[in-house]
């Protein structure tokens, strides 16, 4: 606990109150626990406790063939199965060096950006839910989410656990008319965003609850290895889609929203995500215009033995940099399989952001980090 002197008043004996929030707590976004020490309502110390959803993902993957852990990556960050698939495919494709057909690249971008919409729209819903707006914004968010999940279901057969990517391409082509339906959804999405922004962005309660709460300085964000919208909300212009240009992202024109000269509070994190959705729509429109017919799968076998090598594949997942590190030892199974989960590493600054805030704000700060416990604990 940092040096802290209890607020003392004559005639009043006070002491610190220790509260264990979680693992069963409606605002912890899963099974996460915060051990907080409170002086009245002020958070004096906070200790995150996790591991309640440790599903030994990495260990299981080391005992199965490369392709067999693809469905397990779906269950890491269960909002964004498509980007998880992509990051893993990128890592494995480095090991076996395979050409990816043009149509597959386009579909990968489309799926990835649709996933970003799903994630951000649900996050904003949950975030506002944490603020106390129970219901309406979350219901609006899930209404839009369902439309995109329908598209995923038509393409891959599953709503959430898509398992759609393969090394060298995709599992199957999208059905007939899918691109038109996607275009319809994408064209209608800005109208929903207008409504959502009108409802939330200048809402007085949201402004007063989130502005100046949970400040994260640029220096701390960089030093702690924060990535994704959270880093950009602290004023760093860093997006792996621009840095790495993985896939075919160099062909698309889009902007990276980041909050320049702001403090990096909860409101900035919320706004960065709202703006990012607009840019995703721009990418989707360009990708839907550019996609052409063709094969969707390169010729990779289902079981292969890569030579001894290491590979690291990373994507800009909706929550930050998602990376897969693979060590191949010449067999059909990886020798080491490691996930670099964005939400786990973003969570490390929770304590710094929460100390000195009110206990009710700790809930919002946690919500604005955007964690998913499947990815934190793996």
């Amino acid at each position, binding site marked *: 606990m940092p040096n802290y002197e209890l607020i003392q008043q004559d005639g009043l004996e006070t002491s610190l109150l220790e509260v264990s929030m979680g693992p*069963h707590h409606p605002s912890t976004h899963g*099974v996460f626990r915060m051990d907080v020490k409170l002086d009245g309502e002020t958070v004096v110390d906070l200790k995150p406790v996790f591991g309640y959803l440790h*599903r030994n993902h990495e260990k*299981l993957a080391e005992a199965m063939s490369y392709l067999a852990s693809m469905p397990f990556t779906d269950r890491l960050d269960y*909002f964004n199965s498509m980007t998880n698939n992509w990051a893993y495919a990128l890592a494995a494709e480095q090991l076996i060096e395979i050409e990816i057909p043009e149509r597959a690249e386009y579909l990968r971008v489309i799926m990835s950006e649709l996933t970003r919409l799903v994630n951000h729209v649900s996050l904003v819903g949950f975030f506002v839910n944490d603020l106390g707006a129970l219901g309406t914004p979350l*219901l609006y968010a*899930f209404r839009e989410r*369902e439309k995109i999940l329908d598209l995923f279901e038509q393409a891959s057969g599953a709503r*959430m656990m898509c398992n759609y990517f393969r090394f060298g391409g995709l599992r199957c082509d999208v059905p007939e008319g899918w691109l038109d339906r996607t275009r319809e959804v994408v064209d209608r999405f800005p109208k929903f965003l207008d409504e959502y922004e009108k409802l939330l962005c200048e809402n007085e309660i949201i402004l007063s609850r989130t502005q100046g709460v949970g400040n994260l300085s640029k220096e701390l964000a960089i030093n702690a290895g924060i990535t994704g919208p959270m880093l950009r909300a602290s004023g760093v212009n860093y997006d792996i889609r621009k840095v790495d240009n993985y896939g075919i992202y160099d062909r698309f024109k889009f902007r990276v929203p980041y909050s320049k000269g702001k403090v990096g509070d909860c409101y900035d994190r919320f706004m960065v995500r709202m703006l990012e959705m607009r840019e995703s729509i721009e990418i989707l429109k360009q990708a839907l215009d550019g996609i052409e017919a063709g094969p969707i799968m390169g010729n990779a076998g289902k079981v292969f033995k890569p030579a001894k090598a290491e590979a690291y594949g990373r994507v800009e997942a909706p929550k930050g940099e998602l990376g897969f590190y693979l060590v191949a030892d010449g067999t059909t199974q990886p020798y080491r399989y490691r996930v670099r989960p964005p939400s786990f590493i973003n969570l490390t600054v929770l304590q710094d952001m929460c100390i000195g805030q009110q206990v009710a704000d700790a809930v919002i700060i946690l919500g604005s980090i955007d964690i998913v416990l*499947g990815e934190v604990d793996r």
Partner: protein
Amino acid sequence: MTTPNTCPSVELDDATRAELERAGVIVSKVDFLYNWARGGSIWPLTFGLACCAIEMIASATSRFDISRFGSEVFRPSPRQADLMIVSGTVTKKMAPQVVRIYNQMPEPKWVIAMGACAISGGPFKQGYNVLKGIDRYIPVDVYLPGCPPRPEAVLQSLNYLQEKIRTQDIKSDPAFTEGRRQYPVPEFTGTDLEPAYNPDVWQPPANPNAPAEEKVEKEATA
């Protein structure tokens, strides 16, 4: 759902029943009314463990709308909830908490094991840290398979539960006769759970491939 005045358990000839209905009188068993009311207003616990929790939330949103079945009142506190939907992977670290929350729920209470993980460990069954089914520690009423189950499946499992509630007998059901049922909370030792299962609730299945000699020996000693 059958309406109270057609309750089959009360023996009345049709003429008498019709006459009573005209007078605004319904003849039924207390069980029937009680179960009908409870089945139509099950309050689930806001209790998300993993991926399945998202589909559970989705079943409460506008497209699927669980409130059509009277269960939209998700309560964050176990003291106010009737139904625990174990939605997702139960790890060994989490299992004691799940049992503790179950113990805190007032009677009558029910459990839906949602998803492959809660039923049996699912895809993570081979791992070292996943409980191979929550039914080892608490009684489960409805098993809902899928990975994750669709929101429609959540609604169907709720319907199955309502059917089950309709057959409960207030006089003999343990939910009403035994007071609040509590089960021993297992202890997480850092590597495993102690005990490995609750023998009152769950028994390991008989091994069909067990060697025949043991059987003979047992018979001989008997």
